[in-house]
Every structure is written in structure tokens, then in C-alpha cells.
């Protein structure tokens, strides 16, 4: 049956803790076919791939709906190794290579060719020695298939980033069984020429009969490479089109990716309330935030505005607020109300009345093991010397923590932000994600900031809490006239709460648009295409 699809997905669905992330996803893939899978961050691509690979996280959160057929047989992988066994290979976004090993050793990692020996019958095959000559030949052959020239003895840590990507792919190619190859953003770290070589190599692989699922944000190369395209949005397939016979434009695809149905689209905010006064000015800033590197950004935020920063994950949008707050090494010029701010020094940012709500709530935002009231007031105590009271007589020399005032302040926020907890003394770790986020906001409000930077305000919290958090930000802005910068992966959220939105791509600002512009325009900016402001 040559026409039987190699992979067939039927009505795949998935819920995480009552949160639907995938619904009714069905498509199929033939041998030698290349399928492009595109979608915004959070559209469900990674979840889909996790299901396909039997990642433990899926089973531990209640499994999935629907069925997967591989080579005509229904499969349900318990672990990624099961998927590898039937011939599904995956190249991840982050490298999984041993840095001190050679290319050959990495390509054949845990699949080394062994010399037969008597000992292996006595103990395990693991006591056999490696057949390095054969290993090198095999590795060289795999690399050659890709059309690049990398020595099999080269140590990974001494390779340029692009080469590492090739080694990852070579590893999957070397598996004799590999019949389906999934590549997650393989070109993100490659230069233009390297990308070209890789795309050609993938074409060759496909011609030899291997099916490929290609996930990329670079739409142009996706169009160039793939036989068919599947567009995911909000966990559903919104479009499945053959590429070769139709003329597709990146703009068209982008609009599928971000376009919401009209009735589901909350009114964008987009006040054009520029008072003319500038609150924050950023010029040629760079930030060394791992995974969110900022190369060169410049923008200005008006006083009293809610300014949004959007863009795909890893492009540097999160690096901007983290850099301004001094949490990572950074350079360039940042001015708040005309006054330059020292970078790389959180204290300087805090002293100039900026407050920060981190995207990494548990890592940076909270003292998980401490009381709620400590969490809320700690920064204000350290930076502004509040919540301290003098001891009688020694008042000038010895000022102690005013635990009563701290609890009182916390109680105020617990009430106004509707934080569900047993009281100010509860430990932060025991709260739900939404309530933890409210504590992070309370901590920032407690500083009475002139400029508030909020990162991913609704990440990982349920719908009800989302509305409340966004509403709080809006109200705070209106009541106190506080300038707010919101950084978020969710474009809809940015458009709903912000006046203007900047889209960040490849570490710099791709464009700044009023929030009232149609969502496709932002989508196109995210895909790295140009647009008129």
C-alpha cells in the first residue's frame, strides 16, 4: 500500500488542568513528504509534538484525546524512547549534545558501535570496547548526507553554533530506522548560507523517503521547503493547504496565524493620549539575557501610557524590561524623565521609582518559602526604608522590622486584589499561580512606582484571574497615571490593554504600532516581514 500515510493524527485534543490547549487536530503525512507546522507561541505546536513523542508530561497530566497511527498501526508511546524505536526522530530547539565529545561520539551517543568480546556474555554489552573506526565512518556518512563538511573528530564545544545543529540532525539521520523526522526551529541559530544548506539537505532526505515535520517561524523558508502547510491557532487547525500548487504569501499565512474570529476579539484599547512628555527613553540598548538576547533597541514611552512589547519567544522582548531593571548585563542609554539610569544595577532602577513584575514568578518574583506580607513589602523596605520602626531610646541606631505594619499593608492588598489565602502569614509557595501573580503585582504597587514594568502578567494563570490582573493594571494606570510597560507573548492581551505595541524580533524593534491596528499587521512584524507604520 504505497499510498497509506506514514503518520496519521485523528482528532487529537489535550487539556492541561481544565485549560484546553489542543482540540480536534487531524492531519496525515506520507513518506517523503515535508509538512510545515506554523503557529504563534502557545498555539499548541509543542504540546502536539509532546503528544507525538510520548513525553511523560502528557501522561502525568491526564493523557490526550484522539488517536495516532504510525505506519497504519495505532500507537500510544509511553516515553520518547518508544517513539525512537518505531522510527520517529526529533531535533529539539535546545541542543542535546555532550560538549566535550567529538562529532562522531555525539552522533552515535548511546548507540556506539561495539567490538564483540567474551566479557559481554559474562556481564553486559556495556563492557565491550568501542569500535571507533566504524563509528567515525558512520558519522562521516551521516554528515555527508547533509551536504556539509564537518570533521568527525571536531569537539562540539569548539564548533560554531550552526554546526551543532547539523550534528543534531546527523544523529537522527544515522538511526537506520528513522522514517519521520521532526525539526523544531532548526534554522533559528543558522546563518543564511547554513540555512540554505540545511534546507537542501532536508529536501534530499525527503526524496530518500523520510517524512519531515518542519516547525519554523521563518515563513519564507517554510514556503520554499514544504509540500504542505498546517496552521495552528489556539489549539485548532485553521488551515491545511498544499504549498506546491498554490501561490502563498507570507502575509496570508501570518493573517491565518494571528487572525481571530471577529466576535471573539475584544476591543483594542489604543488611546492616543500622548501628552507630549516622555517617561522613558531607551537608546541602542543591548542585554545579555540568556535565551532573550537584546541586540539593539531604541524606543520611547509617553507619560501615562500603557506600552506593550510583544514578539515571539526567544526574540528578546523579555530582555528589554529585564535589562532596564538591571537584572542582566546591559549597555546603551536608558533615561527616565530625562535622567539617565545606571544599567546592571537593580538598586539604581528601583531608586528611580521603577517597579518590576518578573516573568519568572517563582524564580525571581517571589520568596516562595516566606510569608505573603514579606513578599509584598520586602522591596519597599529595602529600597525605601519603609516598614521599619525605631526601638525606644535606641531609635536612631536600631530600627527593627515593623511586623504589624507589614501585615497591615499586606491585608490591604489581599482585600483590594482579592488574593485568596489564609492571611498575610501564609507562605507564598502554597498559593495558586494567579494569586502568586497578584502578590507580585502588590509588591510592585507597594513601591508606588512612576514606571511599572510587567512581564507576562497572565502566564500560567486561569481565565478569571487573567481578567482581574489585566483590569487591575488598567485601573492602576487610570487612577494614578502610572506609566506601564507590559511585555507579553499574547498579542490579544497586549492589544486589549495597551495604547501602543512594539514588536521585537531578532533582538531589535521590528516596529511600533498603535494597538488599534488589525492583528495581522502585528503578525507580519513578528514573522520578520516589513510593514508601513
Amino acid at each position, binding site marked *: 500500500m504505497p499510498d497509506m500515510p506514514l503518520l496519521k493524527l485523528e482528532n487529537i485534543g489535550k487539556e492541561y488542568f481544565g485549560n484546553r490547549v489542543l482540540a480536534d487536530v487531524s492531519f496525515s503525512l506520507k513518506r517523503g513528504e515535508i509538512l510545515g507546522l506554523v503557529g504563534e507561541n502557545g498555539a499548541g505546536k509543542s504540546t502536539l509534538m509532546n503528544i507525538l513523542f510520548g513525553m511523560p508530561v502528557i501522561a502525568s497530566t491526564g493523557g490526550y484525546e484522539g488517536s495516532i497511527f504510525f505506519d497504519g498501526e495505532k500507537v500510544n508511546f509511553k516515553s520518547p524512547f518508544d517513539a525512537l524505536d518505531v522510527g520517529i526522530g526529533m531535533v529539539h530547539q535546545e541542543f542535546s549534545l555532550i560538549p566535550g565529545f567529538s562529532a562522531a561520539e555525539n552522533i552515535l551517543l548511546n548507540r556506539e558501535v561495539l567490538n564483540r568480546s567474551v566479557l559481554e556474555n559474562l556481564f553486559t554489552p556495556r563492557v565491550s570496547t568501542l569500535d571507533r573506526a566504524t563509528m567515525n565512518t558512520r558519522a562521516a556518512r551521516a554528515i555527508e548526507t547533509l551536504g556539509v563538511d564537518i570533521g568527525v573528530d571536531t569537539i562540539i564545544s569548539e564548533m560554531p553554533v550552526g554546526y551543532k545543529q547539523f550534528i543534531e540532525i546527523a544523529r537522527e539521520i544515522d538511526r537506520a530506522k528513522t522514517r519521520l523526522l521532526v525539526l523544531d526551529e532548526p534554522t533559528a541559530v543558522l546563518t543564511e548560507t547554513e540555512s540554505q544548506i540545511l534546507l537542501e539537505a532536508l529536501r534530499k532526505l525527503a526524496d530518500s523517503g523520510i517524512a519531515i515535520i518542519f516547525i519554523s517561524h521563518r515563513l519564507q523558508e517554510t514556503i520554499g521547503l514544504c509540500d504542505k502547510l498546517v496552521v495552528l491557532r489556539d489549539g485548532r487547525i485553521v488551515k491545511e493547504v498544499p504549498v506546491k500548487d498554490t501561490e502563498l504569501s507570507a502575509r496570508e499565512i501570518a493573517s491565518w496565524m494571528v487572525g481571530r474570529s471577529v466576535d471573539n476579539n475584544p476591543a483594542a484599547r489604543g488611546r492616543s493620549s500622548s501628552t507630549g512628555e516622555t517617561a522613558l527613553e531607551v537608546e541602542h540598548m543591548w542585554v545579555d539575557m540568556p535565551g532573550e538576547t537584546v541586540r539593539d533597541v531604541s524606543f520611547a514611552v509617553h507619560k501615562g501610557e500603557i506600552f506593550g512589547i510583544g514578539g515571539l519567544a526567544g526574540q528578546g522582548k523579555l530582555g528589554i524590561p529585564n535589562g532596564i531593571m538591571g*537584572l542582566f548585563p546591559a549597555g546603551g542609554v536608558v533615561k527616565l524623565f530625562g535622567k539617565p539610569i545606571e544599567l546592571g544595577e*537593580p538598586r539604581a532602577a528601583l531608586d528611580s521609582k521603577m517597579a518590576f513584575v518578573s516573568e519568572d514568578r517563582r524564580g525571581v*518574583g517571589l520568596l516562595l518559602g516566606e510569608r505573603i506580607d514579606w513578599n509584598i513589602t520586602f*522591596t519597599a523596605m529595602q529600597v525605601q526604608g519603609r516598614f521599619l520602626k525605631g526601638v525606644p531610646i535606641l531609635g536612631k541606631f536600631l530600627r527593627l522590622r515593623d511586623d504589624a505594619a507589614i501585615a497591615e499593608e499586606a491585608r490591604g492588598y489581599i482585600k483590594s486584589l482579592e488574593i485568596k489565602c489564609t492571611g498575610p502569614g501564609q507562605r507564598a509557595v502554597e498559593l495558586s499561580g494567579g494569586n502568586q501573580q497578584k502578590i507580585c503585582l502588590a509588591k510592585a504597587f507597594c513601591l508606588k512606582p512612576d514606571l511599572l514594568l510587567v512581564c507576562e502578567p497572565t502566564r500560567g494563570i486561569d481565565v478569571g484571574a487573567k481578567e482581574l490582573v489585566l483590569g487591575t493594571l488598567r485601573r492602576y494606570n487610570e487612577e494614578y497615571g502610572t506609566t506601564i510597560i507590559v511585555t507579553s507573548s499574547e498579542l490579544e492581551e497586549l492589544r486589549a490593554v495597551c495604547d501602543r505595541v512594539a514588536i521585537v524580533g531578532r533582538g531589535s524593534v521590528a516596529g511600533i504600532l498603535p494597538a488599534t491596528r488589525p492583528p495581522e499587521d502585528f503578525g507580519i512584524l513578528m514573522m520578520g516581514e516589513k510593514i508601513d507604520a
Partner: protein
Amino acid sequence: MLKKFINAAGWPRIIIGLFLTALFATAPFVGVLVSTSLSDTLVRFGMNGVLVLAMVPMVQTGCGLNFGLPLGIISGLLGATLSIELNIRGMSGFAAAIAFAVPIAVILGYFYGQLLNRVKGGEMMIATYVGFSSVAFMCIAWLLLPYKSPTMIWGYGGSGLRTTISVDGYWHDILSNFLSLDFGHLHIPTGMFLFLAALCLLVWLFMKTKTGTAMTAVGSNPVFAAASGVNVDRMRIVSVVLSTALGAIGIIVYEQSFGFIQLYMGPFYMALPAVASILLGGASVNKASIWNVLVGTFLFQGILTMTPSVINNILQTDMSEVIRIIVSNGMILYALTRKAQVKR
């Protein structure tokens, strides 16, 4: 209710607590005087309390268990020997010893803190060996330092200090006998307790200041603290200095009750009992309170006092040393493996 108590107290404390209670309960039946045993326990509690307290600041800032306690002890030994060298006796001798020791501890602690800031994540092992090598280095120093006092140097023309120096006639029991009470066989070293209480109070107050609060936050989540404008490295240095200074005071308190200054390899293994005590008191690798110090020291010293007398009388053999080794190291192992689990 019972479950809540077990959760709050933790199994190790309950087991050790029951064991200790059992020891006290059996004591009268095997001919051991409870009052004498209790006196011994109390004295050793007072002797060791400050040394255990010296763990608190470093644990609180996440520098880990202070296996480098010998550094503080060395400062204390220098202070004590200087005070004797200058022939200062009585309470002023004791005060002088502390007055000499603390500045040395502050300086050593500062550099020690600088070192620990450069090796974050590997503090405990490095602390252990910094402690060991400083003890070994001081062994050479004790031989060479130009001390003159005849109470301290080897008698017959030899150079260098004696291995054990008696503080009799200088400040032996100077704290312990202050306001001390006796009820029959029960002796309570009130002065030593008052001193320990005062230090505990000071540490407690310090932990309530802005700096102290910042230190706790650094131990709890250094990234959070840094994002709140706290200078994490400086807080860590403050805590190391504080721990080292408390270690210096601790050994002097210990000596005044013990009656001897032990030089050379004396301070070598002194960190382990202190570390074990605070863990036994319920501290974790990055959280400790005054309460942990008091409970832990009492339980640990109680076991140490009671096992020789009671077990020996039952089994006719002295197993106290072995039990001490197993309990103290078992406690540390428990803490180390538990921490890894919580992190995961």
C-alpha cells in the same frame, strides 16, 4: 493533631527526643543520678550554645552549613592566648579575650566571605578544607609565635605553646559561676545561660533589622533579593563575618567552662558537632532560627551526656563516642539528601 505535631517537629527530632526521654527515664533504674546528668547536660548546653549559634547567620544567607567554623575558633584561640599572655585575670581577662578575638574574626571572616562568594554552590566542601588547612597552618603558628607567658609555653626550654593550656586562675568558670544556682546535685550555670541568652537576643534583633531581613531573603531566594536591590554578595560577607565572630566568642565561652584552651589539632573536628546540633534542632541547609539552636544543642548535648552514663550502665560498655558519630553524621547526611529532594 498528632500528625500536625509530627509535621511541625519532624521525625528526626521526635526520634531523638524520645530516645533522650527514654534515657532519662531509665537513668534512675541503672543507678545514674538524674540531677547530675541534667546538670552535665545543662553545662554542656551552655558551653556549646554559642558555637551552634554561629551557624545561624551563614545558613540564613544560603552560604550553607558553616564547616569553616574552625576559622572562628582560631580567632577565639588567638584572643584567649593573647589575654593570658597579657596576664589579664578574672572577668576582665574573659572580656579582653573576646575583645582581641572579635577583630581578628572580623578580618578573617571578611576574606573567608570573599572566597565563598567566588565559589557559590560549592561552599560547604571548600569551607571544610579551608577550616582544616587553617587549623594546620595555625599548628605551625603556635610553634613559632613569640608567646612568653610561662603558663602557656612548654616548660623545659622548648619553644611554642603547649597543646592544652589551663585557664585556671585566669577566667575558669568566670561566666558559669556568675549567679549560679545549686539545688542538691543540680547545678545551674546561670551566668553562662545569661550570656548565651544575650547573644541569642542580639542575633534575633539583628535578624529583625533591615539588613537581617535582607539576609534572610538572600538565603531564601538570592535572585529575588538581587532584583529587590539587595547587594547579595555583601549580605553574604556580613553573614560570614558574623558567623566567624560568633565562633570566636563561642570557643571562649566553651573554654571558660571547660577550663582549658586546646590548641593545635584541637579545633579540627569542632564544626561537625555544631553543624549536627543545629540540624537536629530542625534547621535545613538554608534556614535556621534561634529556636533550632536551642532545641538542637539541648538534644545533642543531652544524648552525649546521657548515653555514656546510661548505656554504659546497661551494657557495661562505653558506646557514647560511636553513638555521637552516628547521630551527628547521620543528621548531616539526612539534611544534605533532603535538600536535594526539595530542590527537585
